[in-house]
Structures are given as C-alpha cells and as structure tokens.
C-alpha cells in the first residue's frame, strides 16, 4: 500500500512549455485533490474530483487542466507554463464521508518555471 504517489519530484520548465504532473493513489479513494503551496500561503485548491469522470475547479484553476479517467489516477496538466506557476504541488486523496476523514497527501512536486 503505497498511499499517494506523485511524479516527478522536481522539474524546471521554460516559459511556454507544457507538462503533466502525475498522481496515483492505491487506497480506492473517491476524492482526489490538487493543491499548490506558495511560501507563507498555506495550500490553495486547484482542482478536485469526486470520482472517476467527475472533476471541478477549485480556488485557483487558471492555467491548469485535469482529468480523472480512473479512480487511481488524477494527472494535472500545465499547458503554457508561466513563472507564476512556480510552486510546490501536492496531490491528496480522501475517502468519501467518513467520520475520521482526513486527506492523505503525496510527497509533492517542486516546479520552477524560468
């Protein structure tokens, strides 16, 4: 049981390049999330998914896209990288509506856009 895994761990992009951040969970969780964390800013929700085939925008979705074709995978796509997207990205998952619901976080991807 690996929990939530993310790849890559680090990446440097040039302005205008595109890339996909991968996220996989093996806990059969319905809910998955993408956050970005900027220094001193907590975590901001980018997109979330309540199940395979269903995604919705979070607080800061501009410049990103997601898909959820399976329960396990929730990739985040950056189409035209901009310096403002330099951040640490965390993927998380949670089981639906449990009393002790907590989110399980992946290890994060540190992205730099130059």
């Amino acid at each position, binding site marked *: 049981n690996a929990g939530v895994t993310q790849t890559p761990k680090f990446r440097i992009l040039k302005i205008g390049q595109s890339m996909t951040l991968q996220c996989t969970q093996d806990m059969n969780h319905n809910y998955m999330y993408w956050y970005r964390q900027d220094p001193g800013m907590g975590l901001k929700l980018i997109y*979330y998914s309540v199940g395979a085939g269903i995604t919705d*925008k979070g607080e800061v979705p501009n410049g990103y896209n997601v898909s959820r074709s399976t329960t396990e995978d929730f990739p985040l796509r950056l189409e035209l990288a901009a310096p403002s997207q330099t951040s640490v990205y965390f993927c998380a998952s949670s089981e639906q509506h449990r009393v002790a619901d*907590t989110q399980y976080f992946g290890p994060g991807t540190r992205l730099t856009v130059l």
Partner: protein
Amino acid sequence: EDKVVQSPLSLVVHEGDTVTLNCSYEVTNFRSLLWYKQEKKAPTFLFMLTSSGIEKKSGRLSSILDKKELSSILNITATQTGDSAIYLCAVVLADYGGSQGNLIFGKGTKLSVKP
C-alpha cells in the same frame, strides 16, 4: 468566503519552551478541524477535532477546539529542535464549499526551535 486564520505566522523559541499556536475560523458549515505538521515535504496529520472542549493529546503535543470562540489551539510542551516545522490548521466543511472545496487551510505558523 470561508477562511481560516492562524497566528502567529512565525515563532522562534528555545528548546524546552512551551508554545501555543492559534487557529481561528469563519466558515458556513463546520464539520471538523485538522492540525498538520509540515517539515520539508508533505503535511503529516496530527489531530482531528470535532467536539468542543475535548483535548486530544499525543506525547508533548495537545490540541483543543472551542466552537463557541470558533478557534483551536495547538500546544507543544518542552519543545525540541525536531519540532521545527510549519504547523497547518485546516477546517473541514460539511459539504463541498464551492471553489474552495471542503478543506480550507490557514497559512500556517512557522515554528523554529533553537538549541
């Protein structure tokens, strides 16, 4: 808009000191409050609080929720250098709160413990 505010934003103490971190919230549909510790990588879960006045304890860390005051505190006694981290507070909403999702994070408190 739902929000979670943590204070102080940063704190420097010496080993052995006791610290109290604060978290206050203004949300429309409260379900529970979570505390996380974040060192170099992903946040790790510390406590979940749902009922007022019931202290949760784990070693030198403890936390309590006050629903009347819409706040929670995290106490760390006899601090050690290994306690240096960012402590995040998050409120879980009872439903999906629109664009913010159902988990609203504060900005965190950066704790530095000096030897």
